[in-house]
């Protein structure tokens, strides 16, 4: 378990992390989301005692990181795939970490095998591709067989098999009762991996909730029904107080109705259904909705998730400006300009 209490970090006048308090619990994969510059990396670095908090604290199983004698046995982290010495072989990079925490050298070969780098274990890591560097970083996180694992953008540079593998690895580790904390910008990937979400924006906690609740709270969910007797179905729904909307293909979309309720309703009245499915928005839509809705983001006047081209995120303080739409118009004018 990781506990953050009132964690803040200021760089000069800029507040990177602002009174962040949350817990990362064992047994589930907890996703850590936020736009660029929201303070995710700073928070993760503070969790590992790499950056000193301006105020507040982080506890790992109730203790400060610095109080852990052999921290790799408690918590393993992949922060930066390239945080290894390029002139050293993959094996030796891991060996010196293992020795510092009195982990047997046999474990080094073991984790290299787990991540599939055995064949290049003796090669200098500077020749590694981003994906291989990522695997090496994952190996270093697994080194001490820790109960807590942190991954910052783990799928970066991995190929589809690698992505599938790391996703299942994280789920598996969580299923074993370990604490898994993973940050990612890939909403579609996160939707498949995480059970719980912690969302921050501008250093502040925006949400700390389950994946399902997050999506439900931040987007529209509805049921879709399809029937060979559409008239009867529509009448039935109207009678039951719903307002179905007909969509392309003859299906009806019903807001505020559970499929259970609709199924019972149809059975009761003998209406045949050829489809009865719950429609959920994607995590991405929910995320965009939330970050657009949060006060900080309104200040910059941005991000309507419904718009086809939301502006780019802010670099530092700069407002994003409505660049997206400008391109729409600019495509033509650009041609003229040439």
């Amino acid at each position, binding site marked *: 378990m990781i506990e953050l209490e009132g964690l803040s970090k200021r760089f000069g006048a800029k507040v990177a992390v602002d009174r962040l308090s949350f817990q990362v619990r064992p047994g589930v994969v907890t996703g850590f989301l936020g736009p660029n510059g929201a303070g995710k990396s700073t928070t993760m670095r503070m969790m590992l005692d790499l950056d000193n908090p301006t105020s507040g604290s982080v506890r790992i199983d109730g203790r400060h990181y610095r109080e852990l004698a*052999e921290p790799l046995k408690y918590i393993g982290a992949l922060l930066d795939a390239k*945080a290894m*010495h390029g002139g050293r072989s993959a094996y030796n990079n891991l060996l010196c970490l293992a020795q*510092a925490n009195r982990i047997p050298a046999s474990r080094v070969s073991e984790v290299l095998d787990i991540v599939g780098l055995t064949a290049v274990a003796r090669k200098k890591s500077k020749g590694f591709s981003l994906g291989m560097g990522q695997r090496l970083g994952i190996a270093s996180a697994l080194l001490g067989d820790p109960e807590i694992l942190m991954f910052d953008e783990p799928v970066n540079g991995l190929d589809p098999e690698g992505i599938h593998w790391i996703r299942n690895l994280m789920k598996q580790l969580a299923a074993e009762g370990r604490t898994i904390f993973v940050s990612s910008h890939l909403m579609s990937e996160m939707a498949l991996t995480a059970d719980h979400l912690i969302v921050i924006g501008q250093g502040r906690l925006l949400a700390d909730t389950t994946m399902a609740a997050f999506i439900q709270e931040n987007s529209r969910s509805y049921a879709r029904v399809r029937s060979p007797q559409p008239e009867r179905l529509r009448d039935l729904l109207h009678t039951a107080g719903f307002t179905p909307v007909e969509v392309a293909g003859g299906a009806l979309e019903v807001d505020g109705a559970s499929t259970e309720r609709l199924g019972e309703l149809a059975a009761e009245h003998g209406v045949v259904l050829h489809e009865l499915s719950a429609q959920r928005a994607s995590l991405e839509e929910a995320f965009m909705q939330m970050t657009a809705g949060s006060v900080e983001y309104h200040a910059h006047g941005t991000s309507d998730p419904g718009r086809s081209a939301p502006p780019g995120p802010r670099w530092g303080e700069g407002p994003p400006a409505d660049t997206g739409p400008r391109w729409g118009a600019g495509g033509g004018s650009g041609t003229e300009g040439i």
Partner: protein
Amino acid sequence: MASLPAVLQSEWTKIRTVSSTIWTLAAAFLVTVAVSAALCALFRSTFDDLSPAQRLTFDPTLASFSGMTLGQLAMVVFGVLVVGTEYSSGMIRTSLAAVPQRGTFLFGKLAVATVLALAVGMATSFAAFFLGQALLGEHRTTIGAENVLRAVVGGGLYMGLIALFSMAVATMLRSSMLSLGILMPFFFLVSQILAAVPKAKTVARYFPDQAGARIMQVVPDALGGTKVPYGPWEGLGIMLIWVLVALAGGYAVLKRRDA
């Protein structure tokens, strides 16, 4: 707390598994010994051209260390890279995650690297001395002569301290490029040039390398050099103070700054 033997073992693995260790230390040894030998051979063949005063104050021991001015630069590179590559590679974050007690981490790293630098420094010093004396012919001295053993051992200590000083500076600056950019010109140019400028000389002799190099002199004011207001061990002491100050600065930076 992290166990110190474990950290030492880890740092030893780090240092022996990068090729820069081999080539910097080998360069320190070879450059010092080779340049010293060449200069000793030159002294021998041109000894008669020296002025009488220079002939009288000729210091055969110091002559056999004359390549150290160049060889120490390799030691500087060694020292800087030991610390600097942690930062340039990003390894520092991984390292500190494994050993969050930063004092222990720094001590382990510097201890291992300094012991290694001292060992190579001693080997260099003795090799340069014996080869140099062999080439000096009739102008040579012996290891048993007064103060000579002190000078030779001092040469080894000097090399080790130069390396440690460089490590400390790199810890403060957290960058190999920056540290080399400051230390190399300083030891090779600034310090040497200032030592030859009349007024600046009095300041320059308190620079770490100038003060520390005093231990390698057997004949005071050798080759017409000016008199310095401190003896050989005091000179090494001055150098040690520089090293300790740099270490304190490095430790403070490592302790306070975000990794």
